[in-house]
């Protein structure tokens, strides 16, 4: 997990004084501030979207809530450069929205280029990180407290705000952190929507002056910003107990009847899904149909789909397996050292993918040449990049398990291994599933590390989409992109269906 950081330090040592002194410039400072502001704004807005969505799909009798669960999470796999292009096609100065409005005399729509546009697009493509973590968190809450609250005369709304939300502090902070760090690392959306962030500045160093040292200095600056964000999050979540006092396993929650509120609730979900998933899908379908009409062959990309699916699944499993002990130590035996070790893992997720990829090129070829550019190194790259996703998901569930249950099992003679296997892990299932899903879905769309570290000829859906769209073969990009959405939706649908069956 430390490899990208060590790599940055090694490279930054080559940097000349000018690159270092540029860090103090006003323009550099503005860059850091803008990046931080964008990350905070997107995290905040994602929370506003994801909290009611999670509650509606987990705790209420919303019609078709399984379907909504899947549709609301799937936008996670839309690569941000595809999402941004679709966003421009729909809401740009001459996009579909303007076309629809033009008969009404509307000639200009609100400017989507710039901070506001990047903020909107990134919110729509990263709120699912929070949603997945929140859903796991909600499912782990003991409903007894809420029942008690209601029986004491509090309304549903006040129960939600005063009882449920405070218990969700860990998933809220963990999920918001993931969203914020994803925003820090994003390149596709900010470059297309013209917002300068640290990551864009790092890319420009590689792209224009081929200056790895100057890029590394900026990379370290980004690590500094991330450290600050992590310290803030740590201060916020340090205290508190999040497990119930009742029986170990939460009973099945009673689903809240929405009554006539179901219509606004449905409209809310439908609106978000329409923009976050409908818009990119619509634009992709448009490309596909237009290309087919012009005589482009339809290319299925099923081989790439298989590659994407298995390598992402392996990455998800490896990440979950590695994250379990880390989460257990961090939650059960908290110490400053454990806290630092846990947080170091976040640098890989916050750094631009190209930096992590280059660090593994650097170390891979020197330390383990036998696996260089093999799928083993690729899975390792995904682990370095996405480990915090697994950790965030698992941690959320772990804090909800009362340590007393484990202690009781041990006092009854259970060996630590047996307690882990029969008590802790089964109770952790919601977190394991959300951690796996987060890594799986994010790895499916990963691009920079896949391009540099996958075995030669190992095409994934993400590389196919990129390769075609970067040369303006939009029709050829559309098919793999649509398959990407499908391949992501299928396992999600299975997981959600299981989840709901367990609840009954």
């Amino acid at each position, binding site marked *: 997990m430390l490899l990208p950081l060590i790599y940055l330090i090694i490279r930054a040592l080559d940097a000349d004084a000018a690159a270092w002194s540029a860090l103090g410039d006003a323009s550099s400072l503005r860059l850091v501030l803008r990046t931080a502001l964008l990350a905070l704004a997107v995290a905040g807005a994602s929370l506003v979207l994801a909290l009611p969505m999670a509650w509606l799909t987990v705790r209420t009798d919303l019609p078709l809530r399984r379907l909504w669960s899947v549709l609301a999470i799937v936008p996670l796999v839309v690569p941000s450069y595809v999402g941004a*292009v679709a966003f421009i096609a729909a809401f*740009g*100065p*001459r*996009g579909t929205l303007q076309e629809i409005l033009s008969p009404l005399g509307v000639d200009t729509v609100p400017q989507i*280029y710039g901070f506001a546009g990047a903020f909107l697009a990134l919110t729509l493509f990263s709120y699912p990180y929070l949603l997945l973590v929140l859903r796991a968190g909600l499912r782990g809450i003991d409903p007894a407290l809420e029942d008690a609250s209601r029986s004491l005369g509090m309304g549903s709304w006040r129960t939600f705000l005063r009882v449920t939300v405070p218990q969700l502090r860990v998933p809220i902070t963990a999920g918001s952190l993931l969203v914020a760090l994803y925003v820090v690392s994003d390149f596709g959306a900010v470059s*297309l929507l013209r917002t300068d962030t640290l990551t864009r*500045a790092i890319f*420009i160093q*590689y*792209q*224009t*002056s*081929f200056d*790895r040292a100057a890029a590394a200095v900026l990379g370290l600056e980004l690590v500094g910003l991330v450290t600050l964000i992590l310290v803030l999050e740590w201060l916020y979540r340090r205290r508190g107990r999040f497990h119930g006092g009742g029986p170990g396993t939460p009973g099945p929650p009673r689903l809240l009847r929405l009554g006539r509120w179901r219509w606004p609730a449905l409209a809310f979900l439908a609106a978000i899904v329409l923009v976050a998933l409908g818009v990119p899908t619509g634009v992709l379908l448009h*490309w596909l149909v*237009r*290309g087919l009409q*012009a005589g*482009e062959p339809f290319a299925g990309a099923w081989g790439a789909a298989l590659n994407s*699916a*298995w390598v992402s*699944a*392996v990455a998800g*499993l490896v990440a979950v397996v590695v994250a379990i002990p880390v989460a257990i130590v961090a939650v059960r035996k908290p110490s400053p050292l454990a806290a630092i070790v846990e947080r170091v893992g976040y640098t890989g997720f916050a750094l631009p993918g*190209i930096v992590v*990829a*280059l660090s593994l*090129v650097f170390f891979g*070829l020197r330390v383990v*040449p*036998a696996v*260089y*550019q093999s*799928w*083993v190194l690729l899975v390792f790259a995904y682990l370095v990049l996405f480990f915090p996703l697994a950790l965030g998901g698992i941690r959320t569930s772990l804090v909800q398990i009362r340590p007393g249950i484990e202690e009781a099992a041990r006092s009854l003679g259970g060996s630590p291994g047996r307690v882990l*296997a*029969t008590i802790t892990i*089964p109770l952790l*299932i919601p977190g*394991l*599933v959300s951690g*796996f899903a987060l890594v799986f879905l994010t790895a499916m769309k990963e691009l920079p590390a896949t*391009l*540099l570290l996958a*075995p*030669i*000829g*190992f095409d994934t859906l993400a*590389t196919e989409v990129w390769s*075609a769209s*970067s*040369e*303006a*073969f*939009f029709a*050829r990009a559309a098919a793999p992109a649509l398959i990407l959405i499908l391949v992501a939706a299928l396992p999600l649908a299975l*997981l959600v269906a*299981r989840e709901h*069956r367990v609840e009954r």
Partner: protein
Amino acid sequence: MVASILRRSPSLLIVIALLTFALVAACGDGDDSSSAPQPSVSEQPAAEAAPQETVSTPEPPASEEEMPAAEEMAPEEQMVAEEDMSAEEDMSTQQTASEADMDDPLTLTVYSGRGESLVGPLLDQFETDTGVDVRVRYGGTAELAAAILEEGDRSPADVFFAQDAGALGALQDMGRFTVLDDEFLDRVDPVFRSASGGWVGVSGRARVVVYSTQLSAEELPASIFDLIEPEWSGRVGWAPTNGSFQAFVTAMRQVYGDAATAGWLSAMIDNGVQEYPKNTPIVQAVGDGEIDVGLVNHYYLWRFISEDPDFPAANHYTDAGEPGALVNIAGVGLLGSSTNQEAARVFVDYLLSETAQQYFATETHEYPLITGVDPNPGIPGLDTLDPPSLALTSLADLEGTLDLLREVGALP
């Protein structure tokens, strides 16, 4: 124990099913990929790697270090490696090395900054025509250049096929390329190759003004200097991070000087020029009617037209002789660390052959760079463009251009 977990948590079943599926797929794939390209590079006889003029000769200790890796390889790969190793023991002369090559087909690893959709068919054709076994890693030109620099002497790449001269120049400056044979260099106009011979252009692209067909001919700018007039306010797009755009700015600096160039850049920004990350979104924006003109390379337009014959945009060439009509190249360089120099030469030779040049003319709508192959009839010939007579090598002062772009605020 396991059974009890499963009973209590059916959703784990799905995860396990995915794992099983993944492992099966992984094992099937692992056989040919886990020992992938890298051993073939480091294990081949050092004698074969004879780069004449580079800083990077593989050192013998390095290849000894690699030997144990052979034990981890799949059986069939191991045999090949053993052959190579025994070959190394038997012979020390170049002659026997090439004899060994005759038994095995030549292999070649290409890092291509040009997309598979564009050059994939050409590389397949190369394989068929020459029998060389080609493996291609596709990626962004800048990212692959950075990767080659990080890989150093152990790079699996034999050849770098890049989108722009800037990346080739950067690798040449870092001593990654071997000097190409004059036989190859001489086929191309000196304007389109490195003066020191580290890289050679294989196809050309002209800087053009792509415009919306809503505009009439009289409205089109005769010169790029017209674009700073108030009538063009907010109607122009550019891509300041793009290598071709930067080459064009460097050319401007040489023709008009730094002060005039900075003046033009500032005036463009003051005139509300719209910024895009690269060429394709500019062409898209012109087609959408978001902007009226854009400064791009000429050949992207054909991609849009092939998917949408009614795409409402066309290319306009500014006045002859001004940098607006500069011609850039996509080109190749041969890595000094390559142990497949022979195959790499076959490849460079092929790219500069009539077959490949004709492919660039007809399939990618680029300019062929060898004499005897004409560009696509749909685009004006290189001779009619009369670009400023600047060798691309003389556009090497990228750093100066970047400083200028930062100074005026076109780059962060």
